[in-house]
């Protein structure tokens, strides 16, 4: 695979998260290909795509849980290594430790990051801090319960508190509301927006739910393996790429916006660009409207784009 960086790159220096030319393959199977991405601080960046397109793989690469086959991933200009506290994570499940109570789950991060002596000296301080976050999640009254005694929505709220207490530079969320029933899910979406505004978080939110992605995001990335390039239509081993990148107007944190016509129109557009196996855009004509968006093309693709 010939991944040559070129002049289409913009503003990589000010990005909190910078992903360039990242490819990921499992053996011969290419999952992600030539992923280019900048995410600014304070952005709520949602990632959608058809199932199996590698959304979660991208998240795991950023998290450091897996390493890219090629390319680089920088956080604050530093290459990412093993998972560490500057990148928080909330999974769909398994975010909480089943053997710890709600309070212990939230305090755990503070304890693990403290030295042996501090764990005793600062214990009350840790609990106070945990209380702040648990109050925010309206869960302080449930602090002595174990995760299995909580509903799905409450578990995810604990997981949020558990991640936020570490004040991560970027919060990675992998289908966090995927297992919740629709009512709880909508409630959690609004709740997440409140937290995002309160704490000025940077969020990288992976979901397969297009409506959720458009509703939550200040920016939406569409990851898809349905595109065309110069390798011809019979070439099957295409890794997913970012085929569209829109800025979204964050108008109101109310679910009313979901009823509006523009909202529906945007979803229709994205569904066509990302989810329709018969609608194949060429790599040079992706809809990368976001100002932070950039693309590294192969030399041939670049020449072709310039001749158009």
């Amino acid at each position, binding site marked *: 695979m010939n991944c040559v960086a070129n002049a289409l790159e913009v503003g990589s220096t000010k990005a909190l998260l910078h992903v360039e030319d990242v490819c990921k393959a499992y053996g011969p199977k290419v999952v992600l290909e030539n992923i280019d991405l900048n995410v600014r601080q304070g952005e709520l960046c949602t990632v959608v795509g058809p199932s199996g397109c590698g959304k979660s793989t991208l998240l795991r690469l950023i998290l450091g849980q897996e390493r890219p086959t090629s390319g680089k991933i920088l956080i604050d200009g530093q290459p990412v290594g093993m998972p560490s506290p500057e990148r928080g994570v909330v999974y769909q499940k398994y975010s909480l*430790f089943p053997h710890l109570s709600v309070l212990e789950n939230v305090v755990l991060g503070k304890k693990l990051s403290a030295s042996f002596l501090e764990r005793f000296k600062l214990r009350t301080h840790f609990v106070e801090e945990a209380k702040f976050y648990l109050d925010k999640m309206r869960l302080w009254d449930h602090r002595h319960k174990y995760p*299995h005694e909580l509903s799905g929505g409450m578990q995810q709220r604990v997981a949020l508190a558990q991640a936020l207490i570490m004040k991560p530079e970027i919060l990675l969320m992998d289908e966090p509301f995927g297992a919740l029933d629709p009512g709880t899910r909508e409630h959690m979406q609004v709740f997440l927006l409140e937290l995002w505004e309160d704490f000025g978080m940077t969020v990288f939110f992976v979901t397969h739910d297009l409506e959720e992605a458009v509703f939550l995001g200040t920016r939406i990335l569409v990851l898809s393996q349905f595109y065309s390039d110069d390798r011809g239509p019979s070439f099957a081993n295409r890794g997913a790429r970012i085929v569209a990148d829109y800025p979204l107007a964050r108008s109101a944190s109310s679910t009313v916006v979901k009823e509006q016509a523009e909202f529906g129109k945007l979803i229709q557009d994205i569904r066509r660009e990302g989810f329709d196996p018969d609608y194949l855009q060429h790599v040079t004509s992706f809809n990368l409207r976001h100002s932070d968006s950039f693309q590294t093309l192969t030399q041939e693709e670049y020449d072709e784009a310039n001749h158009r």
Partner: protein
Amino acid sequence: MGNRLNFLGLHAEPSSRVRMLVGLLPLVVLICAYLTVSYYRLHANPRDKLTPSPGRMIEATKTMAFTKDQRTGTYLMLSDTVSSVKRIAMGLGSAALVGLVAGINMGMLPGIGATFLPIVTFFSIIPPLAILPILFILFGVGELGKVMLIFLGAVFIITRDMYYTSRTIPREQIVKALTLGASQFEVVYQVVLPQIMPRLLVAVRLSLGAAWLFLIASEAIASTDGLGYRIFLVRRYLAMDVIIPYVLWITCLGFLMDSVLKLLVSWKYPWFEAAGK
């Protein structure tokens, strides 16, 4: 009435009272059968030793448990119990400790696992009783030989169990702990270890049966005290009046240990069963 008629059917729903009654039934039948046989045999030959009467057994138990032995000056049943339980506790306890540390490290650190899993699996398949002579040669016929037999009989199984259990911890949890600032050491000993502790107690529970087997076997072959030693000693005199109470007593002890471990799990680790392990 319908339920009773369907008692042997697929859809039988015996009430809890019925369950208890029918559960006790086989035991009652067995005891009655013994008493009948014992009665007729003693009727024919009052000196018969094979099927002692309950009175005879109680008498023998009293002698063993509540009368000082003239030769050693101890209560034999008590000293036998103490020696045997000590051996089991030392053997199983050390096996649990070693099995936990070895298993968790093999499970969490792929390099360690790849190195030691084959050899541990190999050793776990060797029948421990087959190497009893080797143990007696190596460690002598004293306490160490017997404790080693129990230890070796349990440690490889427990290690493998702990290995597989720690491998079931979802990868997400390990990564999550790292994002919370845990070091590799803390992931293993503060995140994974507490989660597999209840499973360790379950593994010890399951090993108890084997441990008793090895204990009785080694005491029968070379010992000067212990429950197994006593049974095999009095066998020479066909003293069924001692053997039967001793076997019942051993059963009680085993049941007690099992219950204590079971209670310990549900008391100390309330999340264990509920979290759907």
